[in-house]
């Protein structure tokens, strides 16, 4: 006699989704690259259609991508699937582009009728601007890190971005763990000072 086959609900999708979120949180390069490359063109089209250039598209998209990444890391945005990531990126980019079009700089040169049918709901607006409080300080750190000397930059990137273990980094640098940790600390001090001076 045939047995009725029980159809279990697939845990696969949510599992996969959690994997994506985790991958984003640990800055997994392949995942980030995949998300970056698959969602770019939609935004490029949006910006090109609304008086922007490819350069604008790149800048706006990269800003949007950083916001997306930051919000995933802080659990401010919990994507349900890749579509929601795509939609989220699009909304942020749209908002950022609208901001740009409305900015004084832009209005000086372009008539306001150029601001087309771009709409962003208020809730999106609030979400996106949620962490504006830290923005200024964050940007000075980012700028400081940008101009930080290469040895420190490389060490800190390995440790904080690539999430490599102290042991592995020490091996790479051919140092013992204690010296590596101390080196890292001194690099952090340097970065702090730089960020303060650049402010």
């Amino acid at each position, binding site marked *: 006699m045939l047995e009725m086959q029980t159809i279990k609900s697939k845990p696969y999708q949510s599992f996969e989704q959690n994997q994506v979120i985790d991958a984003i949180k640990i*800055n997994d*390069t392949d995942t*980030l*690259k995949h998300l*970056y*490359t698959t969602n*770019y063109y939609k935004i490029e089209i949006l910006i090109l259609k609304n008086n922007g250039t490819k350069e604008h598209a*790149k800048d706006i998209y*990269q800003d949007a*991508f*950083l916001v997306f*990444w*930051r919000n995933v*890391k802080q659990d401010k945005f919990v994507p349900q699937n890749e579509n929601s990531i795509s939609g989220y990126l699009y909304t942020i980019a749209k908002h950022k582009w609208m901001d740009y079009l409305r900015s004084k700089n832009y209005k000086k040169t372009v008539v306001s009728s150029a601001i087309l049918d771009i709409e962003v709901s208020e809730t999106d607006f609030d979400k996106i601007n949620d962490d504006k409080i*830290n923005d200024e*300080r*964050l*940007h*000075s*750190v*980012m*700028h*400081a*890190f*940008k101009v930080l000397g290469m040895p420190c930059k490389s060490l*800190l*990137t390995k440790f*904080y*971005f690539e999430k490599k273990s102290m042991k592995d980094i020490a091996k790479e640098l051919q140092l013992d763990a204690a010296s590596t*940790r*101390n080196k890292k*600390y001194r690099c*952090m001090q340097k*970065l*702090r*000072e730089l*960020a*303060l001076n650049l*402010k």
Partner: protein
Amino acid sequence: MNPNTGITQELLEFIERCLNKTATSEELQDFEYRLKNDPEFKTQVTEIKTLLFGIESQALKEKLDDFHKELTEEQDQKVVSIKFEHFRKIAVAAILVIALGSLWLFRGNANEKLYAKHFSPDPGLPTMMSETQNFEFYDAMVNYKQGEYQTALDKWQLLLQSKPQNDTLNYFIGVAKMANKQEKKAIEYLETVTLSETSVFKNEAYYYLGLAYLKTDNIELAKKNLTFSSVDNSKKILSELNN
């Protein structure tokens, strides 16, 4: 950021452990407690958080440019592949032309074979030497029967000048030209015969005309003319052409 906020290596590592959840539960308890009750500690934690986030953000930002380069490379590859696609289309077209060309050649060969299989010159008319009236005509017929097609043709074409619509002359000139491998030239003479109202040669003329078109690879006209002929071979050729 307050430069006077001294953060020691120990403090930095402690806060880091608590932030990336590698701290012990005891450490975490301590961390939570100090966060609530020690404003300076809270500031230090915020500062470290900002530093860590700033490092990651900038590192990612710089990576995004790498991702973007890949994007443009991808696009370039697309352009290349579009170009390749274009080239491919041309190549396909070229192959098609070659294929059709060779098909035509093969078909041509097939037509030629079919033609060779079925073409044999008309046996000609019996020569009656007594008839002086048509002496020149029958004289050429002798040449024709002996396979001297060019000689026959020369003589008949002279006669044709005074009787251009003569069906007998046109018919034999056509057939002689075919026997002389001048199929293309044969067509106009044979056509004259098929167009004449009443000719005893009409039936045969359609047959040879069909063969002439077959030899010159004009299948449609070959079929058309062969269908007008009741010569047995016509049906055979037609069925072979239709296969």
